[in-house]
């Protein structure tokens, strides 16, 4: 079978990458280099809430299904906030 189920851990990692990539492109999430994991997750949650507020989603600060669905939609490349 071509469509092999994705193990949950990979899916979570894949989702995390999608979220960081999206927030970096459109919400100026700083690069995670030289930052502690703790600080990074705080920053990601903060930017996620900003993105969820913009799109009128529930401000969970988590990569929930509605947020991931929104991130998957085709869109303009200009950031949603800032310069």
């Amino acid at each position, binding site marked *: 079978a071509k469509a092999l189920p994705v193990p949950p851990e990979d899916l979570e990692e894949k989702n995390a990458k999608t979220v960081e990539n999206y927030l970096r*492109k*459109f919400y100026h999430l700083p690069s995670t280099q030289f930052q502690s994991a703790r600080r990074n997750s705080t920053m990601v949650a903060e930017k996620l809430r900003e993105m969820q507020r*913009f*799109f*009128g989603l529930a401000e969970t600060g988590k990569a929930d299904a*509605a947020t991931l669905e*929104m991130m998957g*939609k*085709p*869109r*303009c*490349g*200009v950031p*949603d906030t*800032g*310069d």
Partner: protein
Amino acid sequence: FRLTPGSPKWTHTNLTYRIINYTPQLSKTTVETAIEKAFRVWSVPSPLTFTEISQGEADINIAFVPREHGDNSPFDGPNGILAHAFQPGQGIGGDAHFDSEETWTQDSRNYNLFLVAAHEFGHSLGLSHSSDPGALMYPNYAYSDPSTYSLPQDDINGIQTLYGPSNSPIQPTGPSTPTACDPHLRFDAVTTLRGEIYFFKDKYFWRRHPQLREVDLNFISLFWPFLPNGLQAAYEDFDKDLVFLFKGRQYWALSGYDIQQGYPRDIANYGFPSSVRAIDAAVSYRGKTYFFVNNQCWRYDNSRGTMDPGYPRSISRAFPGINCRVDAVFLQNSFLLFFSGPQYFAFNLVTHSVTRAARSNLWLNC
């Protein structure tokens, strides 16, 4: 609407643009027409004018480029990021880039060049992204029929904040996005669809999940590009697992999200006389479909395929307590939920009486 931080804008209103290259998927003429139409979206409500030049430095350069193309904002191949543009200014300022690996079309297939270009030119003129889901400057792509497209009010407000009103004596206005908690909200049509409830309004619909009770707003065109805006009635035929949608004398059939072939058809097929120009609301229940037109109710026998004798009759006679014109109606359990203006009435099919009345937008979690 939002302005780009610092409110950069052009200091002159007679702007020039130049199409640097083309996409092989559309003819040159089609590209030029789409770009010209996209600029006209902004020139109509503002004092701006746009003139195409074929040589020299234009205010706004337009190019189709792939992946990394020298501006530190690489494209990503098909889907994902479709295009981007730069705020007003010299050099690259104002320029609009389109991902050459996208499929560019002039119809409802992804992605309509006119719609994406009109959005990007908003950035070229100094607008940022709007959080209004109906605005042209909303970041996500949403198809809308170009032949009937008019710039939404949110975007008109934005461009006029930057450049002032149009020079024409009559100021153009545009459609506003309905808000769920608007106390005056009236629905165009309501129907169930395999357990979900669809509330139609203008070119949008709210979709309510039966258990999660989450409500999300969508463009009709995003799901059914061929359906018109402003539907007037809708009902689900549970036996045939079909949803029927009405506007004027035309009706369409959906199986799930798929539009059925051979539609639209004329409501003469139900036995309506030519004097009936439109349907206000419809609901199907136990093999009968009830149609509401002005203050009358028609009843159609789904299996016989004809209208029942003794109809039409007044709505208040068929459904005591429903003494008003009906905007929309749907069936839930043993209740018919009638919507009229900002109110709904719950009609108990067992007691044959109205047992509850409340605000319509309670259904949208307001």
